[in-house]
């Protein structure tokens, strides 16, 4: 029996296989990793470069931070150096790494110093990415091997630890996954004493701006701590890679219930600390982890700025490798515990409760509430770091966004008190004071529902004052004769405040629910219209209209052509269309399947935001959005909504694409079957006359001398007549092919029917023989707007049928009349009539009235008639003629078509 304990986790294996596949075409990343500046990372990297270069490898220096030290600078000699890109920034010109030049040069190995470097976002020309690690990601994706350097303090998850150790907060950080996913990390270690000695000898290069921090930073205790941190991080990495190799190669790693950590964050200052703590704990436990933000009605009341913090927090979490989730719920604790149970989370990390004393007792904090609800998970409380002072000053820096105060609501609140007082006076004679208190409570409740929290509180207080003034003896003074009324006041105030607060909460929740419903409704409206739309171009138009309307922006859906290149849509009839979309950014978004532009990681300085539709492999298209008001797109809710819209549009475009493919497959199949039937039919209709021609002509050639002139002539005549039959078959096939291909352009002019029929008759003269055709076209018929030669063809084919299917000597009658803006033309014959039930099949290709007869015609004649008449906007039908024979009726429009 297989022990379940020995089973490898299939998800883990799949992830490993996927990662391997993704890496197959990817460049390898080698990081030279150090505890602090000055340990000699760049020097070691260049040394290694020389060793590899000597073996003949195609190695290029992409960018090496200029060192003031000849020893390091000398090492650059002898290696190919990529030219740097001059970037203008605040009046200065800086030399920056040139990503496009590197992609164009495509060396086997590229050296780019300083992995944590930030690009000059406001520089000219603006960089593609905000950070160098993003440049390097793109290089790796392009299949270039990259060597780079980084210090331990730049790792995101260690950021606050380093800040605690050194007191200097590092602004330039890299996501841990870059470090963890690197193919090779080389630790460059130097004992702190040696490092300090080198520093004092002036052997360490430091950027100008860092010099002031030198004394604080380069203390021996700091250097020891940083070195230890680097060694530990390196050890973790080695350990993790050993485990990964083992589990992948032998699949022998004992299957264990993997831990899942949930990190619950709010918009408070502790959030970043919680996220980083979660990352460290998840690494230590080798657990999957999620960062959860709960949107409660309470949080919706926070200022815009604080709510925007959520994006930063969740983005940080994502960069550290967490899955991020936003939940909605009445209280954070409830939503969290429910989510923890559905995801089988084993540990939930929360911040320390902030409410203390009686407030904590009155309304337990999320942490306390969660601890009470915890059943299948542990709650881990993280103590706040000692940086709250800093955080407080941070908060003071933030310009407070003023919430508009609705003074009219406060006025209404006071009016409510006045009304209650008036009712109180009316009741005073016959009711006790206790009942009047009830009226005031009712008033405060209504104020809570109608006017919100602030005005309701005002009503509560005003009520107490009014009650005291008007109804508590001595009347019309604020003094109170009977001390027991003080109890009434307190209870009344507390009750009204609680009720007002509750009512305001209900009101707030209703509003939130309303907003959510509106969002759902907007999305539903678009989905419904998209579902009813056919054709990708039309889908794009509908999508643009909805996005432009909902987000008050200009938008455009860019679709790739057959070669995968995006192009501007040819027609932009919608008013909300974006005309200035940058195709090069959009193309990057399409190729990489990642968003770019406004407020994203890539080209954040661009005015518009570009979202990919569908996955990276699908490459369905790009949605570009240029907001009139940036907030409309940058708010978290709006952003999420926009992403959902993009996802919906992606689905619709994918559906449209599949429909197009299915349609072309159907057309191909139909063409194929047409071709087969055609071949079968033609081979009969062509071989028969060919046999006659070949036989007759060979007889003439071989035995012509021995034949009398009459016999020779007879043979020649039959050759000619069979050749004419073949000509007709071929002409019909070609005509039908022309119609099938859809490339027939009607050359319409005003024509008279008798002229067209006359032309047909003179063309048919010989073939008609003893068949008579009676024209009953009256002189007063209006002209028709048709392609003359095609309508002549219709008459020819109809008369040809008369010749083939009716006995010689009978007459066919052609007549016409005007009915409902249409010319109705009727062709009656006196033949055997139509086979029962076949009147419509007659117009199908290769159908004939009597099968396999000697009659030549390939059954194409009527099919061509139908194609021609339909192309003119009319139709053709066949029916039994009253009194025997067949009747063909076709219609032609009399009006010049409006389009």
């Amino acid at each position, binding site marked *: 029996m297989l022990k379940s304990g020995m089973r490898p986790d299939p998800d883990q294996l799949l992830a490993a296989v996927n990662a391997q596949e993704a890496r197959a075409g990817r460049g390898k990343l080698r990081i030279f990793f150090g505890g602090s500046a000055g340990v000699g990372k760049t020097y070691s990297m260049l040394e290694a470069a020389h060793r590899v270069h000597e073996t003949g490898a195609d190695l290029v220096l992409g960018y090496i931070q200029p060192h003031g030290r000849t020893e390091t600078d000398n090492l650059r000699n002898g290696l190919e150096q990529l030219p740097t890109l001059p970037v203008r920034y605040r009046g200065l010109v800086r030399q920056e790494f040139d990503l496009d030049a590197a992609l164009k040069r495509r060396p086997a190995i590229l050296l780019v110093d300083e992995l944590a470097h930030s690009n000059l976002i406001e520089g000219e020309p603006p960089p593609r990415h905000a950070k160098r690690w993003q440049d390097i990601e793109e290089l790796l994706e392009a299949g270039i091997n990259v060597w780079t350097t980084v210090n331990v303090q730049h790792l995101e998850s260690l950021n606050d630890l380093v800040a605690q150790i050194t007191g200097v907060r590092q602004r330039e950080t890299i996501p841990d996954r870059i470090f963890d996913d690197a193919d090779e990390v080389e630790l460059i270690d130097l004992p702190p004493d040696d490092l300090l000695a080198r520093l004092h000898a002036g052997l360490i290069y430091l950027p100008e701006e860092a010099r002031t921090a030198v004394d604080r930073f380069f203390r021996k205790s700091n250097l020891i701590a940083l070195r230890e941190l680097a060694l530990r991080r390196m050890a973790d990495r080695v350990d993790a890679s050993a485990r990964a190799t083992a589990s992948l190669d032998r699949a022998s790693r004992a299957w264990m219930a993997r831990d899942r950590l949930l990190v619950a964050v709010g918009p408070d200052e502790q959030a970043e600390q919680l996220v980083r703590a979660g990352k460290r704990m998840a690494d230590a436990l080798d657990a999957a982890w999620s960062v959860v933000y709960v949107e409660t009605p309470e949080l919706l009341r926070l200022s815009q700025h604080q709510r925007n913090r959520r994006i930063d927090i969740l983005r940080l979490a994502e960069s550290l490798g967490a899955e991020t989730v936003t939940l909605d719920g009445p209280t954070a604790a409830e939503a969290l515990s429910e989510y923890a149970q559905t995801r089988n989370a084993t540990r939930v990390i929360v911040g320390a409760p902030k409410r203390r004393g009686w407030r904590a007792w009155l309304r337990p904090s999320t942490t306390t509430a969660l601890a009470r609800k915890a059943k299948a998970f542990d709650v881990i409380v993280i103590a706040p770091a000692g940086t709250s002072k800093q955080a407080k000053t941070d908060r003071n820096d933030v310009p407070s966004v003023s919430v508009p105060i609705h003074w009219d609501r406060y006025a209404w609140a006071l009016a409510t008190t006045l009304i209650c007082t008036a009712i109180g006076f009316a009741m005073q004679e016959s009711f006790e004071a206790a009942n009047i208190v009830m009226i005031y409570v009712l008033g405060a409740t209504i104020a809570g529902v109608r006017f919100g929290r602030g005005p309701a509180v005002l009503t509560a207080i005003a009520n107490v004052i009014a009650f005291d003034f008007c109804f508590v003896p001595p009347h019309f003074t604020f003094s109170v004769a009977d001390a027991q009324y003080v109890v009434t006041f307190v209870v009344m105030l507390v009750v009204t405040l609680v009720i007002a607060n509750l009512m305001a909460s209900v009101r707030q929740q209703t509003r939130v629910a309303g907003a959510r419903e509106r969002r759902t409704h907007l999305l539903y409206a678009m989905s419904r219209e998209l579902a009813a739309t056919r054709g990708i171009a039309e889908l794009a138009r509908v999508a643009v209209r909805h996005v432009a309307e909902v987000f008050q922006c200009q938008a455009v859906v860019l679709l790739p052509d057959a070669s995968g290149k995006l192009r501007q849509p040819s027609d932009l009839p919608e008013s909300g269309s974006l005309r200035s979309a940058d195709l090069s950014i959009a193309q990057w978004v399409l190729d990489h399947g990642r968003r770019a532009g406004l407020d994203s990681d890539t080209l954040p300085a661009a005015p518009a935001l570009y979202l990919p539709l569908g996955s990276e492999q699908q490459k369905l298209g790009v949605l570009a959005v240029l907001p009139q008001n940036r907030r409309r797109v940058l708010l978290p809710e709006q952003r999420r909504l926009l992403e959902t819209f993009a996802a919906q549009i992606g689905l619709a475009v994918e559906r449209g694409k599949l429909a197009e493919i299915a349609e072309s497959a159907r057309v191909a199949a139909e063409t194929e079957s047409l071709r087969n039937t055609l071949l079968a039919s033609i081979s009969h209709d062509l071989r028969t006359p060919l046999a006659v021609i070949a036989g007759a002509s060979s007889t003439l050639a071989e035995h012509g001398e021995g034949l009398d002139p009459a016999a020779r002539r007879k043979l020649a005549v039959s050759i000619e007549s069979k050749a004419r039959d073949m000509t007709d078959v071929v002409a019909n096939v070609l005509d039908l092919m022309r119609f099938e291909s859809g490339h027939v352009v009607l050359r319409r002019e005003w024509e008279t029917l008798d002229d*067209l029929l006359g032309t047909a008759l003179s063309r048919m003269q010989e073939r008609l023989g003893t068949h008579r055709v009676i*024209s009953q076209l009256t002189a007063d018929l209006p002209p028709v707007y048709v392609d003359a030669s095609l309508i002549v063809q219709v008459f020819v084919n109809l008369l040809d049928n008369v010749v083939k299917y009716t006995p010689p000597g009978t007459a066919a009658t052609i007549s016409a009349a005007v009915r409902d803006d249409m010319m109705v033309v009727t062709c009656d014959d006196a033949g055997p009539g139509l086979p029962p039930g076949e009147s419509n099949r007659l117009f199908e290709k290769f159908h004939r009235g009597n099968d396999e007869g000697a009659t030549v015609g390939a059954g194409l004649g009527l099919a061509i008639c139908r194609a021609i008449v339909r192309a003119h906007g009319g139709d053709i039908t066949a029916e039994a003629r009253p009194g025997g024979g067949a009747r063909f009726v076709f219609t032609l429009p009399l009006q010049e078509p409006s389009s």
Partner: protein
Amino acid sequence: MTQALHQVLVVEDEPDIRGILRTLLKTAGYRVIETETAARAIIEAKSHKPDLLLIDLGLPDADGLKVIRAVRGWSPLPIVVLSARTMEAQKIEALDAGADDYVTKPFSAPELLARVRAALRRNVRSAEHVSHLDIGSIAIDLTRRQAVGPDGDVHFTPLEYRVLESLARQAGMIVTQRQLISEAWGPDKLGDTRSLRVCIKNLRQKLEPDPARPQYLLTEAGVGYRLLLPAE
């Protein structure tokens, strides 16, 4: 034959068809010069001064239209196109380029010879002004604008006379709608095919024994009209 032997330049790259044309034309009493390419055709047309050019459009070195335009640059000699191109637009293109008539392949011998004869007559007639026409039993004097039928005078409008003149000048050959309208109505009425249709209808009522089955005034659907006169 009242005239000396007419000389016909045949431009055709298909040897079999060329052979048939040679036999056919020689039997009918014409002298035949043959060539296969557009380049040779232009040279032969200059050096031999043929009385008629019978040309295929799909030639190995260039389109026959090029030859037609080149020849029209210096000579009014009649040109008859013999081509497998059957679309109306292609016919009109050749006629506009300067061809006098258009015969589609496959062709019948009598039809081709009739066209050749008509084209050669046009060459003779173009020297003098056409003044008299006999259509069926109606005799028309185009100069005086008088017509007499078996039942007395036949009345034509001035417009109808002008259309008849145009058709008569190229009797037996196709006259395009554009040419007819431009000559009878003026170049500013080119799009007005309705008036032309009405005019032709009226002419048929007066000229044809059975207007439903015209014998003299024939329609080339989508291209133009042809006035077929009984052989002289």
